[in-house]
């Protein structure tokens, strides 16, 4: 789960990381003199990067000015994402900006800390030799000597180094205790008064660990389309893409391979739906109904039954199609466990199965040789 900036900062504060004192508003009218004690920054709360360039961060020094600019930002769409809320913070007197993040190094299979004396910019643009990069053994955690190494690399000393060391420890605490996939503070601001605090905050929490984080601050954000959100609630992996052929397969790898097979013969996949392993026909019916709601022009069902029984899938599909007056054409390729029974069930409903993935892909594209939407 990607957190909005104000949610990330609220979680940072719970672990002691200093942040500017902000107020969240959803309408311009909520802005009063307590929100604007002096010069402030108005920051659009969206999950997508590049909001600054899109005009999603503006400055104001009075309530009327803040209200006027807030109205403009709240009416924006930033790279297609509506702005539901604003974070209003006192404008910082910035002396320096640093970069700090903690994430997973997949190759090393360890957490890694990245830090740089150059902050406020894309970390990819910082030369590798100027980066502090250090993996952490999760069994011993972040020991103080690592923060000393970090400060040495960034050339930080004295009171600044002490504050940074504490913040790095707290950020690691956020990473572990909040089950984060990413903690990023960019910029980590040093003010002209010498105080170090989180100017921005990015936090991604592991969806598989949400069961042990019931106390997360609420947020309204558009990480997913409505159908994607509905699918998540049902435990189905469902992703909307640009094309108009709906793909249902079982298993992530096979579903991706099915999309690729369609693309190779000129098709434009529009829905990725991974049934996963199921032996409940109601789950299949639910998934198929979800697919129908996305109005694909053709549906390509590709099942390799192992754990998932082919006849279970066939029954679920036939049940879902029963309620539909004019369903889109369905191409079926079904192989594996209980394949013969499945083909019988499908034949009774007027559906025939092809034998090969590539053959099914070609048939789907023959039925609807469309191109990607907007292309």
């Amino acid at each position: 789960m990607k957190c909005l900036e104000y949610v990330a900062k609220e979680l940072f504060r719970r672990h002691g990381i200093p942040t500017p004192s902000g107020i969240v508003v959803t309408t311009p009218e909520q802005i009063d003199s307590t929100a604007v004690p002096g010069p402030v920054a108005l920051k659009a709360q969206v999950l997508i990067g590049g909001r600054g360039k899109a005009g999603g961060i503006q400055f104001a020094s009075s309530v009327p000015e803040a209200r006027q600019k807030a109205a403009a930002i709240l009416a924006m769409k930033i790279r297609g994402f509506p702005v539901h809320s604003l974070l209003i913070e006192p404008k910082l007197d910035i002396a320096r900006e640093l970069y700090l993040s903690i994430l997973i190094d997949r190759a090393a299979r360890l957490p890694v800390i990245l830090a740089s004396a150059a902050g406020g910019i894309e970390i990819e643009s910082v030369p590798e030799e100027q980066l502090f990069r250090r993996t952490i053994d999760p069994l011993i955690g972040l020991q103080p000597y690592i923060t000393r190494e970090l400060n040495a690399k960034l050339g930080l000393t004295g009171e600044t180094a002490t504050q940074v060391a504490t913040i790095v420890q707290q950020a690691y605490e956020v990473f572990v205790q909040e089950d984060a996939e990413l903690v990023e503070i960019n910029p980590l601001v040093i003010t002209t008064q010498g105080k170090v605090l989180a100017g921005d905050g990015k936090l991604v929490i592991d969806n598989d660990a949400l069961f042990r984080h019931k106390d997360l601050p609420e947020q309204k954000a558009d990480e997913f389309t409505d159908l994607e959100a509905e699918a998540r609630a049902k435990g189905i992996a469902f992703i909307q893409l640009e094309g108009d052929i709906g793909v249902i397969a079982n298993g992530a790898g096979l579903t991706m391979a099915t999309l690729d097979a369609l693309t190779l013969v000129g098709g434009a996949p529009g829905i990725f739906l991974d049934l996963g392993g199921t032996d409940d026909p109601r789950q299949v019916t639910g998934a198929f109904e979800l697919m129908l709601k996305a109005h694909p022009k053709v549906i390509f069902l590709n099942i390799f039954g192992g754990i998932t029984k082919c006849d279970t899938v066939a029954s679920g599909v036939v049940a879902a199609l029963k309620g539909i007056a004019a369903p889109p054409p369905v191409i079926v390729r079904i192989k594996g466990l209980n394949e013969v029974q499945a083909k019988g069930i499908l034949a009774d409903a007027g559906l025939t199965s092809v034998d090969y993935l590539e053959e099914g892909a070609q048939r789907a594209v023959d039925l609807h040789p469309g191109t990607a939407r907007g292309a």
Partner: protein
Amino acid sequence: MAILLDLSTRLLIQGITGHQGTFHAQACREFGTYVAAGVTPGKGGTTQGGVPVFDTVAQAVAAQRPNVSLIFVPARFAMDAVFEAIDAGGIQTVIVITEHIPFHDALRMVTYARLRGVRIVGPNCPGVISPCQAVKAGIMPSSIFTAGDHAVISRSGTLTYEIVHHMSVNGLGQSTVLGLGGDPVVGTTFIEALALLQADPETEKIVLVGEIGGSAEEDAAAYITQHVTKPVVAYIAGHSAPEGKRMGHAGAIITRGKGTAASKAHALEKAGVAVAKRPFEVPQLLKKA
């Protein structure tokens, strides 16, 4: 021989009395695996299809000396189960089928296993099958496998079945088929699997099935250049996946332009690996390799 599983395998199944555990314990036995014991807390003293069930792994180890554990324990209890298997003594390989394990838990499991010299396979994987030894510890459909001298290593389950099916109908049997798992953090990587297969006398050729996300395939390509003399054929899924979307597997995501299928295919081709564009091309490339 084969890798990880052979005729000396004495399998323990943790979570043996659950729906999945019961079904797959039986399927593993039917394939030829010796299932030595099961563990389900609170069910000790019972049997499951003739297999003795214990409350703890320590009791199972004392009575039945298992050397491989297969884990079906639900996600939120899986880390505890893995630690229990590692600490019990005598278990060399822990195969974790469970999906949706929090990745911080997976990190701790994998790090602790490394420290203790125990191999983890998975999590979120279909397991391991060695058709040439008639031993299986996993959830793959037994009927599609045939004994032979081709190994398959993969980050995906059903896609592996698709490819193995094509291999079997083309007369290309398998030594060991190893599912590494679709999560960002897994216990056994392509590199470790390649090292085992290069040394395995029963494996002549290797099939690598990769997908988008991370750099495991690129790292494998570098390793193949240096250390693998056996022919390798690959297939990579996710050429049509957009950036920033998790394609079903937690680990299958292109972030900031990194981890694309094209980059992986390119790295492997540079390492002399024949890369199939479609799953059915794998047997053809194997015959030429």
